[in-house]
């Protein structure tokens, strides 16, 4: 137990350092925020245009979709503060990853905690103030009960872990494939469409909706977003959370397996 506490303290130290380091990259943060707002603007008006003189489509009102877009864009802003995929790939390509492997910590865990630190900084200084103002101006639908808030937060955390495990696994594929150009674009497309980041799954054609429900990506944005706007409740909500949990476990196991295999793949030059 004491060992576990010591370990946790060490990993939290990584969070603290990257929290402070994030403060040095203010320019990057402002740029990211600007681009986030432009996309929010764009999707807001696209949905407004689509709904033009219609109250509800597929049983969903504009108010719901608009709130969905707001919270989705906010969550995407949070996710964007993590280590980008290309940085992991570059680390593998250049061989710098070795310096991580020889140290007495677990790299996937260290990276997760480091990302949490930079996300915390970005959230407190940029995302939270900005979206507070936006929420106050536009008054979207928000959770109405403490339970709903709690389930939403739980779902966000599960969604974050799914995205993190999948993306890191994909980044580690660089150990075997030096050039991932075409595959990478399919991967990004799959994440952006099936996660429901921009289009809620409600509007998908039936067969595509079914397909999306069987993929892990919907757990990243769609489930937390739908909980937030109150379109997911009762038993449906609990089965959605169970599915999220299932994918967290599966993607974690796959990540551990790929990480284990990658460790075997490393060949020391000149040793």
């Amino acid at each position, binding site marked *: 137990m004491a060992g576990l506490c010591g370990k946790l303290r060490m990993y939290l130290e990584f969070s603290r350092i990257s929290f402070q380091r994030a403060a040095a990259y203010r*320019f*990057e943060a402002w*740029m*990211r925020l*600007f*681009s986030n707002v*432009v*996309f929010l*603007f*764009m999707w807001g*008006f*696209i949905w*407004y*245009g*689509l709904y*033009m003189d219609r109250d509800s*489509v*597929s049983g969903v009102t504009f108010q719901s979709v608009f709130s969905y877009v707001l919270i989705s864009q906010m969550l995407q802003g949070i996710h964007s503060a993590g280590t980008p995929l290309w940085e992991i790939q570059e680390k593998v390509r250049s061989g710098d990853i070795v310096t991580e492997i020889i140290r007495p910590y677990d790299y996937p865990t260290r990276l997760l905690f480091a990302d949490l630190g930079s996300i915390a900084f970005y959230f407190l200084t940029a995302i939270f103030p900005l979206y507070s103002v936006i929420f106050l101006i536009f008054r979207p639908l928000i959770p109405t009960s403490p339970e709903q808030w709690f389930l939403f937060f739980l779902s966000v955390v599960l969604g974050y872990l799914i995205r993190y495990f999948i993306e890191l696994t994909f980044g580690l594929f660089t150990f075997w494939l030096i*050039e*991932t*150009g*075409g595959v*990478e*674009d*399919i991967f*990004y*497309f799959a994440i*952006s*469409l099936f996660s429901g980041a*921009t*289009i809620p799954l*409600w*509007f*998908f*054609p039936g067969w*595509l909706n079914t397909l999306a429900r069987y993929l892990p990506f919907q757990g990243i944005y769609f489930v937390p977003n739908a909980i937030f706007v109150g379109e997911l409740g009762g038993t449906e909500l609990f089965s959605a959370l169970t599915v999220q949990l299932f994918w967290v476990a599966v993607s974690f196991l796959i990540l551990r397996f790929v990480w284990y295999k990658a460790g075997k793949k490393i060949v020391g030059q000149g040793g």
Partner: protein
Amino acid sequence: MARSIYNALRIYWYMVEASIRAQMQYSYAFIMNILGWMMHYTGMAITMWVLLYSFQALNGWVYWELIFLFALSVLSWSICTIFFFHFRKLDVHIVQGTFDRFLVRPISPFFHFMALKFDVGALGQLFFSIGAFILAYIKLSLHWSWAEWLVFLGAVIGGTLIQGGMLVLISTIAFYTTRSERVFWVLIFPFRNLINYPLTIFPKAMQMFITFVLPFAFVNYLPALILLDKADPVFPGFWGSLSIFVGILFFWFSYRVWQKGVDRYNSTGS
């Protein structure tokens, strides 16, 4: 004059040849790059299809009309990236001091920098946009007269110059702040996404900004009004035929600003 242009073109072609040969050395990466771009844009087209599935139309624009709008912007973008895409990376050359070598040679630094890379990876975007354009042309059963083909040609050339001008303009920021690539991704990338949708869905202020400040509207929306026989409540129809002139003007302006930047530039070492 004619002789110096001839010489310049000869040098340009010589350097471009070297650049293409360099990129072809890694044939696997080369093909993956082309495939990657095609996947990227095909993914966007599929996303649009899903978006319109339950709604049928966006402000009176049906799916294939949106694809037409999209293909038109990607077409001129792909041509402009062949020549200018590496301008976004000017900051790297300035920070590392490698830009100085462009200043000490007996040809124009702009020209020399432009010849640095001839981005064959852009072929992926070109193939996609031509394919999407042909499909949209058939699906919408368009039959253009020679005048409409002329508008189309003007839009492609004008769009290339406008977007190329923006890449040049963004790179100029590097002379003052030693930053350009991030600015490109943050400024141009979202706006290029914005113009894939009909301008009328956005508020008036944004429409004006995209027409008169960053003239993206001339890249695809305004010409598409003529080519798809649509009307806009604000902009007169004939504006779409002005793309080529706006393009020349904007590119010339960007080029002048870039030259000013070079004049002001002091190497990072000093």
